[in-house]
């Protein structure tokens, strides 16, 4: 049988698919992070926690009120987005102009709070969220059996990423955002309500995280630590992609997902660390990241 890097072709393709699935999550999460960092200059440590909250929101809605997956796909991001607005208004607002490290520490604290609350409510062991009927079952791709739901995840997240990219690169609002990252004061001097825009951007950014959470719910166990175990990796993704670079973080996300997938084949134990190795190497060579603008 044909082999690539000494592994059978079909195994290779299989891992490629799975890598894409994980990459899809990285992409969506790092996208939100990048948007927030770009405009607010805040490294949003709470991102992972809010991703977790999104997943739980979906699970709770299903568990308590029987709200189905598709509704949750819309509602959860809205709820979390609203939460984000509150966070920005009450906490982050007070930190603008200060060393960005304070933003990092504050959001770190917030993530601890959120995680703690859910740990107390639901314990550490996971809650399982059923795959929606429409996407149940799986398709035999010949080289592997791909659960339909995972295919949907890749499709959905890539769509969202492209959508966001379009919004930011091709629309008027996007123009405000990009201009705002360069010179917020001047944009405000033109009559744009920049403070409001900033608040909503943060809301939107974390809504993306929540959306990723809902998408993830049926794939992995919904559990309080799901975010904190992911966030560090996503940070690495954003840094590698170049902080603030939208497209960069998306592409890097997908790439690293795949890289990680292959690492699982050659040296499974290392799959959790390969991202950081890459990060250090990249930063040694390109301090501003792969797609980042040199200062």
């Amino acid at each position: 049988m044909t082999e690539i890097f000494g592994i059978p072709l079909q195994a290779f393709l299989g891992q490629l698919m799975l890598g894409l699935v994980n990459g899809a999550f990285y992409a969506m999460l790092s996208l939100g992070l990048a948007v927030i960092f770009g405009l607010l200059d805040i490294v949003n440590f709470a991102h992972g926690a809010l991703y977790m909250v999104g997943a739980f929101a979906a699970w709770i809605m299903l568990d308590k009120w029987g709200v189905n997956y598709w509704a949750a796909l819309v509602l959860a991001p809205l709820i979390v987005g609203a939460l984000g607005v509150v966070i920005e208004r009450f906490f982050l607002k007070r930190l603008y102009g200060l060393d960005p490290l304070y933003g990092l520490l504050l959001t770190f604290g917030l993530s601890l709070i959120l995680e703690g609350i859910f740990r107390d409510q639901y314990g550490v062991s996971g809650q399982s969220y059923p795959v929606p009927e429409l996407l149940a079952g799986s398709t035999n791709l010949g080289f592997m059996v791909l659960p339909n739901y995972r295919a949907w995840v890749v499709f959905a997240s890539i769509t969202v990423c492209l959508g966001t990219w379009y919004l930011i690169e091709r629309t008027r609002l996007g123009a405000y955002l990009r201009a705002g990252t360069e010179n917020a004061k001047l944009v405000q001097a033109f009559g744009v309500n920049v403070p409001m825009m900033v608040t909503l951007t943060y809301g939107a950014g974390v809504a993306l995280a929540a959306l990723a959470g809902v998408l993830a719910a049926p794939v992995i166990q919904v559990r309080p630590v799901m975010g904190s175990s992911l966030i560090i990796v996503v940070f690495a993704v954003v840094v590698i992609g170049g902080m603030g670079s939208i497209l960069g973080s998306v592409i890097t996300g997908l790439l690293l997902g795949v890289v990680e997938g292959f690492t699982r084949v050659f040296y499974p134990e290392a799959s959790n660390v390969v991202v950081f190795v890459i990060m250090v190497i990249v930063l040694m060579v390109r301090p501003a990241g792969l797609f980042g603008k040199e200062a």
Partner: protein
Amino acid sequence: MASNELLRIENLHAWYGESHVLHGVNMSVDEGEVVSLLGRNGAGRTTTLRAILGLTGRRTGSIRLRGTEAIQLAPHRIARLGVGYCPEERGIFSSLSAEENLLLPPEIAQGGMGVAEIYEMFPNLKERANSPGTRLSGGEQQMLAVARILRTGARLLLLDEISEGLAPVIVQKLAEMIHTLKAKGYTIILVEQNFRFAAPLADRFYVMEHGRMVREFRQEELAANASMLNEYLGV
């Protein structure tokens, strides 16, 4: 007189961090007037403009726009009272194309110029429409900076050093433009190094020194004040 008074500034103080830059500025501008602020580098003219829009650090005193007290308002609220600002450093956005830069400022009132009209005024901008903002030549950037606030329908234009670093021919063009705008009834505050540029355009002149208005005179008093300008502008 006070009836068509558009802007009145009283005892305006402004700070950049620790340094106290404006020490009680008083001035007023009438509807349709072109007023020029003269003074040396560092006199505080730019700061005056920035203070009107609330872009400096701390500021105190009183700024009335058509009777509305603006000293407490956020910059975007002030802008929406009909103020357009062309900053000294031009403030062209590198991540936006020239056209995006032009279309960036939201319309804040009726009666702004149409894009076609603007392109007619500055043909070069039309040519460079799709290239990144900061790739434009200094002159083109300057035109862009002015042009983009003409779209918005703002009636009070704060223009800071718009002739700075531009080839004489373009300066000439800008002079014509200001004439046209004046004819259209715009109100303009002109901050200029280039006295030769400002002199024929302005109805009224203020001379600034160390964050204060030290002299005020009208176009027809220009000659009479020659020696004084000499002394203040150090030329």
